[in-house]
């Protein structure tokens, strides 16, 4: 049981949750994740640790309501408890602050990228962040990301905030325009399709591009193998070998096919949860 100390909406279908977890907060490092169960009948859902406070003994997660399980988790208010919280899981990010680092966050990807970006900034990296979303109201933590970045670029699909277009556009421009300050590394975190296209954008420039995968998993400790992904021709487990991988080596199409495994169940469960929401 983990006590929720804060639960607030930060956008449509976006909830920021602060949870009491002193043991996890003490060990958490940027790039790691937790597994959350809302109640005893709940699914084990992996969520990135978006922030942690070792003093207060809390961790922060941003929940995007995309299915029945995330909806259920998002409804657990302050003063209530999560049935289970397991972590920190996964291999932490390698913070190597040489030169310019471009961090690209797509949608809810702003949450996982924040602690990594902060660690790079604190270590002295020259940080440029690109934050994209479908529309302005889906942007969150823009102030936090801007505060730690030399340059913070916003894009929206509909042009309601920042540049109109996709994150790959300013990314491509940065890569093309700054040969004098070479970009040492790119981080891209967001939906698989966005990460794939960021990797395609950086590939011609041969800039090492790290992505963080959010694969289907059950235990999160290397036991189920559900999160396996082909990286550089080798099968790797997102939960223990990742979640970060060299994006240029990830077999994206295979990854996306595997992510669809339970699409039908998701739709069914979501309808059921939505129906309950109406009843309540």
């Amino acid at each position: 049981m983990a006590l929720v100390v804060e639960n607030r909406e930060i956008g449509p279908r976006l909830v920021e949750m602060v949870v009491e977890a002193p043991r996890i907060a003490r060990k958490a490092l940027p790039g790691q994740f937790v597994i959350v169960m809302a109640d005893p009948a709940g699914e084990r859902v992996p969520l990135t640790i978006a922030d942690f406070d070792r003093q207060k003994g809390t961790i922060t997660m941003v929940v995007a309501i995309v299915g029945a399980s995330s909806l259920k988790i998002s409804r657990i208010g302050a003063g209530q408890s999560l049935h289970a919280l397991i972590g920190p899981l996964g291999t932490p990010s390698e913070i190597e602050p040489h030169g310019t680092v471009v961090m690209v966050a797509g949608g809810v990807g702003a949450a996982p990228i924040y602690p990594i970006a902060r660690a790079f900034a604190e270590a002295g990296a020259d940080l440029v962040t690109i934050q994209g979303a479908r529309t302005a109201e889906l942007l969150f933590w823009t102030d936090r990301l801007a505060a730690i970045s030399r340059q913070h670029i916003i894009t929206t699909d509909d042009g309601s905030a920042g540049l109109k277009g996709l994150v790959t556009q300013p990314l491509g421009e940065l890569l093309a325009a700054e040969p004098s300050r070479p970009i040492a590394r790119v981080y891209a975190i967001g939906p698989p399709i966005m990460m794939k296209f960021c990797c395609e954008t950086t590939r011609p420039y041969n800039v090492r591009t790290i992505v963080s995968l959010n694969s289907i998993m059950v235990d999160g400790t290397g036991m189920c193998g559900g999160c396996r992904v082909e990286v550089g021709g080798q099968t790797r487990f997102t939960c223990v070998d990742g979640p970060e991988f060299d994006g240029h080596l990830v077999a994206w199409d295979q990854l996306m096919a595997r992510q669809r495994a339970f699409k039908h169940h998701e739709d069914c469960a979501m309808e059921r949860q939505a129906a309950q929401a109406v009843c309540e």
Partner: protein
Amino acid sequence: MTVPRKPLAPRTPMPEQLPEVRIHNFEEVPLGYTPEQAQAEAARCLQCRKPACVEGCPVQVDIPAFLALIKQGEFVAAARKIKETNCLPAVCGRVCPQESQCEGRCIFVKRGQPLAIGALERFAADYEREHGQVDLPEIAPPTGRRVAVIGAGPAGLTVAGDLIRLGHELTVFEAFHQPGGVLVYGIPEFRLPKRIVEAEVEYLRRLGVQFAMNHVVGRVVSVDELLTHEGFDAVFIGVGAGLPQGLNIPGENLGGICFANEYLTRVNLMKAYAFPAYDTPVARGGRVAVIGGGNVAMDAARTARRLDAVSVDVVYRRSREEMPARAEEIHHAEQEGINFRFLCAPVEYLGDEKGMVRGIRCQEMELGEPDASGRRRPRPKPGAFFTIEVDQVIIAVGAGANPLLTRQTDDLQLNKWGYIVASETGATSRPGVWAGGDIVTGSATVIQAMGAGKIAARDIHQWLARRTESIGGAPVKTIES
């Protein structure tokens, strides 16, 4: 001992759910003996003076003694007799491979009618539990020593149960949200109802064992920290062999292919068979192929059958004789209409344009010379290939050592496969750290893990006693075995 002249009474059959009924539910298949059936079966025991059955038991249960008690109608006393050496009889009665242990050594085995020792063990344990007669044993005065057990599976639960009685403080750390290890995530409800595991765990809680669930040791806390900051005097590692293995053939990462670990964990631990009442999904229906011939393969195949599979094929590269699964599981699987494809080795998984598995290309095999395991080694028949059409594949070809904890623990000697090197008593290269079960031996059985736990518990206790004396504390009560 001579074989008796009088005609041998036949083994009392175990009542079971009918195959056509049970393939639509997840309830237990064997229904258990009635008291009359149990007494009749126990009465067949000859009370051999040198009982070979006991030698066949990894924890040396006094089998003739408990059978005699059942015969006399002393069912609770029979359960307590078993519990003198086996703390999980309701589990072992159901999942032990009796045919290669106690029953395999019974004097009647030659005539095909060994005593149904497993069924009787189950009967006694169930009787005791269902009649609310589970008494707590006497617990030694507190020693002030604290032991951490990592992993709440059969080995860890045994260590905890044995050491708590000797007055030590016990905390069991478990990565999952429920204790039981393979008993809850691996073995299906229809073979081992989870309420039985819960009752065993509840018993340990009543004895005073603390359970720290959702703790992944190696991540949230290390073995070193347990011994230093957290004040534990000794650590037992019983984390099992949970790393899934595949065949490393092309197409293994296609959609629709999963490891039995994932499939069974979804269904058993997460109760996906009750989706959407439980939130975890699992694939249903379709043409299912299970790769492998062990108990896990049988569990996966029989689970798929219950999840409305159109067809279930078990694909195994040797023949029926070499299958490592328990005889009862193979028999039940056959009754349930599982199709066995023997001498058949997958060489490639075939996918469609969406990246979903659609077929398995297989090679026909034939049996050659015996290998290291004594089983005849399969070898490919040149040019003999064929394809099985499938919608789902479940891989159950074994498991390896999960490096998550061992990699994070300094000075812990591992063998070349990543298993922990431990002495006969479970002591590792790290003073104060013991290990047992699958993380030492590789995949084995529940009872073997329990046997390792028993031996380690004794050694841990003696070590703690010596340590207490050397630092001038109160002596720890000596163990009586």
